[in-house]
């Protein structure tokens, strides 16, 4: 099996949230990224944050279905991590110039930009969830994030039946939607 094929399989697995694939990619690339960060003013905590952020970029790229890897997976990960770390260094005003290049890089500006836009949206969602309050937050999390079924939820939340829980969930969802779009509008202003 050649590496290109292996990497394609890994990305397919990653898109399906396959733990095995994620772990393989993690294991094969983490040390490289850590070396980069440590050699450029970072700590191992910074390395973990940057690498996981990179993994998320990769994950979302893989899931989008339109992702075509034109270079080695390693190069892509290195490039994204490097770009993310540069951005963070700039924000901390620790450094303004180039950071030392270990290996070749590919341009990843578009990926980073898309990733940051999604980050903004998710932050808006996170904030809306925080403002939602209980029991709405738990109810929404249980149904939409953990994908538990209505009868089970009704039981654990103390609703008399699934319909009742569904009703409540609907009201919560509408409130969350309102909060989310309000956040979104604020952002755009």
């Amino acid at each position: 099996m050649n590496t290109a094929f292996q990497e394609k399989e890994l990305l397919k697995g990653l898109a399906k949230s396959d733990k095995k694939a994620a772990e393989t990619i993690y294991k094969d690339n983490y040390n490289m990224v850590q070396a980069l960060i440590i050699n450029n003013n970072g700590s191992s905590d910074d390395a973990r944050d940057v690498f996981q952020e990179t993994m998320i970029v990769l994950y979302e790229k893989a899931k989008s279905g339109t992702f075509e890897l034109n270079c080695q997976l390693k190069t892509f990960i290195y490039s994204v991590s490097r770009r993310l770390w540069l951005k963070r260094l700039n924000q901390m005003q620790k450094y303004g110039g180039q950071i030392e290049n270990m290996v070749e890089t590919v341009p990843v500006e578009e990926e980073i930009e898309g990733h940051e836009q999604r980050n903004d949206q998710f932050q808006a969602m996170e904030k809306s969830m925080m403002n939602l309050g209980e029991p709405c937050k738990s109810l929404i999390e249980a149904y939409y994030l953990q994908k538990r079924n209505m009868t089970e939820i009704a039981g654990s939340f103390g609703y008399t039946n699934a319909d009742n829980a569904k009703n409540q969930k609907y009201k919560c969802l509408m409130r969350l939607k309102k909060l989310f779009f309000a956040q979104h509008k604020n952002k755009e202003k």
Partner: protein
Amino acid sequence: MEDIQLSDAVERFLLGQMDAGELSRFEQLRKSNPEVDQFVVEHSLFLNQLNEFGERKQFRSGLQEIHNNLLDKGSIKNLAPKAKVIDLFKKYRRVWAVAASIAGIIAITISGLVAYFIPNLTKPQLEQLSREISIQKKIIRALTNEVRDSSKITRVPINETFKFGGTGFLIDAKGYMVTNAHVIKGAKTIIVQSRGQEYKAALVSVDTERDLAILKIDDNEFKPFASLPYGFKKSGADLGEQIFTLGFPRDEIVYGEGYMSASTGNNGDTMSCQITIAANPGNSGGPVFNKNGEVVGILSTRQLQAQGFVFAVTAKNIFKSLEELKKDTTYQNIKINTVSSVKGMERPQQIKKIEDCVFLVKTYQ
């Protein structure tokens, strides 16, 4: 259709849980009712967002789990960050560079300024004891007429003004004399005068470093002396030694008496010494004798801020200056007398012998 049902329908639509009949009815409704369509679009967007949010959250916590697993297995290791000091150095490297440059520039500027201003500051502290004379032309004319009337010959150049006056004295019987460099500074014509008789003098050499100038009386009227009554003492004078001087703070020769007070001059200047004596402008270039009638120095400057601080260039410098001059073969026959013939005499007798060799130096510009 109630909103709750619509919301439910959108969810099922997104999950692909609708059967064909329901799906067509749903599509039909969207087409016929723009409001419903609007809601569906908006709601799908929102639900997708919520869904992705959930997936990302889960993926992120999954990653953390993987990270911890791999750490436990030893597949990845936490590297220690580089030493903090290096970190700080790297962080502030530019700041340091900038600060160091600024410090360097400031240091250079300050030392430059100090070097520039110090000489300007000390100069006014010291007054060079040459005499600046601004006698109106009329008086000069009157004086020269008077001089002409007498049998003595005047050397006053026409159309030049008498500017500075100082004192000079012979170092060689043939007519070589020494005075301060600042006395003859800028002079076009130098006239020396003794006992009312003026002689033309030529500038032989100027040693501004030691503030010494050597002149030669260049006049037919001048009759060389057989020998000089005084000698030169290379080692100078000791502290506390009695000294006396002869000079021309006015047109008449003036005697002054004092003592040697310090072996260095202003600000530790080793070329000169400090003496306590009454000195006034015009005394510059005058000889400083010890009690034996040996020249130990040349009176040159006084401090303005304090009374009694007069500085004299030590006799040693006359020797040095002459040595340099003697490199030129024309002047190799200059001899400095080191033996005083007035030793042991009473002071008035000493002065009578010496005063012929001390001249008023007048410069014209």
